């Protein structure tokens, strides 16, 4: 976490992540172009480069979209989530390279402005096989640009996490446009079934991952619906259900609450990290603070506030212990409100 804004908050992990990413992309492009030219003597290096950049961006987009649900299904994928924004910006740069090379190759040699040529050279929007697929790619690229340009904590803080998240959910629209860009573009001419099958497999895999995790989360929320007792508190679990310095995530009033047990005390705060809405209850208490598993943002369990000089705050909830039973008031207190933790009987 950071108090100020820097272009990139470099850490050794991020440097390794980015070095592996850059090396993998260069290797992929080199192999694609080299093998492509070796197998097809008529192919030009420009054409191979356009295809290499396009397929590279498409692969990266599939990877980016798979990381979220995979991290929900298996915590071992969490390290990939940690630096997903760098992956997203890199994917945009690769896609931009594909677009620029494509425009230069196919639209820059006439007497019409290349961008105008891109938009007017084919207007058969009523046709499927002749559809101007370039327009789909252009709209997708504009969405990816908006996302890449706002992939920084400055925009996250100023737009607020819900607005930023809504903006970045446009990646699903971009993904749909890109799938159609490929299906109505290169796959109209390249008829090898393996190519059609690869994109179909990616599409089905991503769809299944997101639908399955979405339904699982929904089922978990529904199972968490509980009745409120006369005092307004809700029994959420037994004390023994919560491991030391860990949390139990419960759903109260449709929202998730993380109930932490630490040093003989129990506190409850919102499960939603203020940074990128990460699941605080899947983190642990480090140095006395709840630590988000996604990017390491920290909050004091009694107040829901980040330790000074940081300013992030999340709502807190009143907690009561009745023997072994843990009870939580489902009404959230304003973010940063200090609530005395429930103390375990000795």
């Amino acid at each position, binding site marked *: 976490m950071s108090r100020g804004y820097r272009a990139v908050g470099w850490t050794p992990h991020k440097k390794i992540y980015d070095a592996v990413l850059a090396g993998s992309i260069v290797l992929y492009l080199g192999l694609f172009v080299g093998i492509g030219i070796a197998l097809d003597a008529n192919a030009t290096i420009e054409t191979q480069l356009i295809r290499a950049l396009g397929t590279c961006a498409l692969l990266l987009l599939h990877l980016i979209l798979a990381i979220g649900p995979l991290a929900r299904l298996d915590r071992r994928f969490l390290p990939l989530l940690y630096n997903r924004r760098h992956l997203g910006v890199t994917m945009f740069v690769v896609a931009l390279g594909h677009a620029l090379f494509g425009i230069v190759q196919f639209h820059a040699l006439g007497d019409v402005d290349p961008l105008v040529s891109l938009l007017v050279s084919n207007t058969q929007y009523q046709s499927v096989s002749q559809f101007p697929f370039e327009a789909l790619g252009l709209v997708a690229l504009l969405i990816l640009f908006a996302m890449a340009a706002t992939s920084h904590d400055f925009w996250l803080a100023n737009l607020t996490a819900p607005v930023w*998240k809504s903006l970045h959910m446009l990646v699903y629209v971009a993904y749909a446009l890109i799938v*159609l860009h490929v299906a109505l573009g290169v796959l109209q001419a390249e008829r090898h079934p393996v190519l059609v099958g690869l994109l179909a497999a990616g599409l089905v895999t991503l*769809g299944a991952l997101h639908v399955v995790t979405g339904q699982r989360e929904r089922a978990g929320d529904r199972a968490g619906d509980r009745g409120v007792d006369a005092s307004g508190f809700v029994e959420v679990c037994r004390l023994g259900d919560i491991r030391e310095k860990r949390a139990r995530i419960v759903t109260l009033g449709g929202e998730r609450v993380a109930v932490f047990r630490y040093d003989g005390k129990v506190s409850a705060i919102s499960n939603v990290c203020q940074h990128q809405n990460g699941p605080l209850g899947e983190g642990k208490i480090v140095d006395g603070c709840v630590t988000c598993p996604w990017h390491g943002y920290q909050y004091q369990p009694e107040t829901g506030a980040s330790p000074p000089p940081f300013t992030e705050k999340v709502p807190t909830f009143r907690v009561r212990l009745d023997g072994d039973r843990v009870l939580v008031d489902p009404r959230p207190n304003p973010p940063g409100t200090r609530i005395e933790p429930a103390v375990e009987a000795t």
Partner: protein
Amino acid sequence: MIHRLRRRHRVTWLALAVLLPILYAIAIAARRPAPVVPSMPAPLLDGVPRETAP
């Protein structure tokens, strides 16, 4: 808080999981074979224009 975002995410993917494969299948089914010229003009077969051929 993020309850609505989660629901929007779930609904978006349910819609994509249904619509995108259908649109993809339509696009692939609409493919037309590349036109084949049954007989190539002689100058093109040689790769040299007739009037400049020796």
